[in-house]
Structure formats: C-alpha cells, structure tokens
C-alpha cells in the first residue's frame, strides 16, 4: 500500500475517533484460572462491564438478588451498569471467585 494512502486512512480513523461524542466506557474484567482481574472496578452508571473468560470452564458474575451473567468458557459477556453503588458479585459455580463493582452516578 502506498505510504500516502495509508497515512490518509489513519488520518481518517483519527478524525472519526475525535468526532465521536464523549460516551460510555467499557471496562474489561479478565477471568483467568478462577480469578477476576481486576478484583474491583470503578466506573460510572451507563458504562459497560465486559467479562473475558480465558478459562476452559464456564463462570458466572452473580449478585445476590441482582444480575446473573453467564460467561461461557473462552467467551465474553457484558452488562451495562444501571445504578450507582457498590456491588459484590461472585461465581455461582465457584463461590470462591469474588469481585466488586463500584459505580458512581453519571
């Protein structure tokens, strides 16, 4: 690819990124060897949490009386944070797996 064309394309991408409105973020939590990392995440209402499961077994991110997200082996799953507050979650299949979400108001 000619250099000038590549530069033009990169410039186009940069412009597109710059023109996006300030928007909700996505925070990744990696699951590896039955551990949520980071164990605690801080984010704002409207942001997305994406769990990336690197294990060969399925896990869940479950809040007692709240959400229950299944995260199949080698797959990802996500939710949008709806309310401000601190939520402790765990895995229903392996309750020794624990994580925390600290959500601030928008």
């Amino acid at each position, binding site marked *: 690819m000619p250099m000038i064309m590549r530069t033009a394309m990169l410039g186009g991408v940069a412009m597109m990124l710059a023109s996006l409105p300030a928007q909700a973020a996505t925070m990744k939590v990696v699951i590896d*060897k039955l551990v949520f990392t980071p164990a605690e995440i801080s984010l704002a209402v409207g942001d997305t949490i994406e769990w990336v499961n690197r294990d060969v*077994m399925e896990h869940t991110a479950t809040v007692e009386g709240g959400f229950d997200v299944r995260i199949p082996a080698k797959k990802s799953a996500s939710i949008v944070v709806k309310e401000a507050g601190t939520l402790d979650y765990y895995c229903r*299949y*392996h309750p020794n797996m624990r994580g925390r979400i600290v959500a601030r108001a928008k």
Partner: protein
Amino acid sequence: MSVRISTIFAAFCLLSPAAFAQDAPSDPQIAHIAYTAGVIDIEAANLAVKMSKNEDVVAFAKDMLRDHEAVNKQALDLVAKLKVTPEDNATSQSLTQAAAKERDALAKLDGAAFDKAYVENEIAYHKQVNGALETLLIPSAQNAELKDLLQTGLKLFQGHQQHAEHVATMLE
C-alpha cells in the same frame, strides 16, 4: 518385590534428587492421581444425574461433569505436550477403590436420602482432594506447568466444595 524391580528402585533412589523424600510422587504419578480424582467426581455426577429428582442436585452434578471434563481434557493436553505418560500408582488405585465402594453405597439409596448422601460425599471428597493437592501433589510437582495446572485445580476444587456446601443448605 522381585530382585530386579528392587534393584531398579534402589538405583532410582540413588539417582533421584528426591532420594530423601521417597514418599513424594513423581510428575507422571501426580498427573495420574489428579486425572483420577477428576474421573471419580465425573462418575459420581453421572450417578446423581441418573438417580436424583432434585433440580438443584442435578444442576450441581451437571456443573461437576462440565468442569471436570473440561479440566481433565486440559490435563491430557498438557501431559501430551510435556510428553509425560501418566503412571498408575497405589494412591490412584486406592482412590478408585474407595470411590467405587462409595458409589455402590449411594446407588442403594434414593430420593432425599440419596441427595443428602451424594452432596455430603461431594463436600467430603472435595475437601480430601484439596488436602492432597495442598500438602502433597502441588509441593511434589517438579514441572512448572503441571504445578500451575494443579494450583488451578485446587481453586476449582475449593470452589466446588463451597458450591456443594451451598447445595447442602438448600436441601435442609
């Protein structure tokens, strides 16, 4: 023990850096024990899926099947990669014998009595395996990748133990 085997054994002890810890299992033996521990739980779970009418117990048993099948496949992939041939040994054999006895006893029960006995047995079994992993198998493992897989196995078995304890409270 034949003269030949005892000679080989003595030679092995002289050559082995683990000569002072003759009770410590080798990596091929550890791999066999860990795999056997998974198979035993799979067999117990198959029995529970067949025998139990309790939704929570069946769901738990299916979780055990899914996890242990996945981890045992991972273990087989690892030993193939490491070119380690799992080696049958007295610990694997006594585990298998004890489990067969336990399954026979379980199979004679039904209904709530079966559910209670299965779940209690799962708690006790996972505890026992956790103890073996922590005190013997993980410290004895020489290969770093095998040790790592055993450490993940320990977290998995600890998780299953807690899960089983939770199911037990639902049966009360």
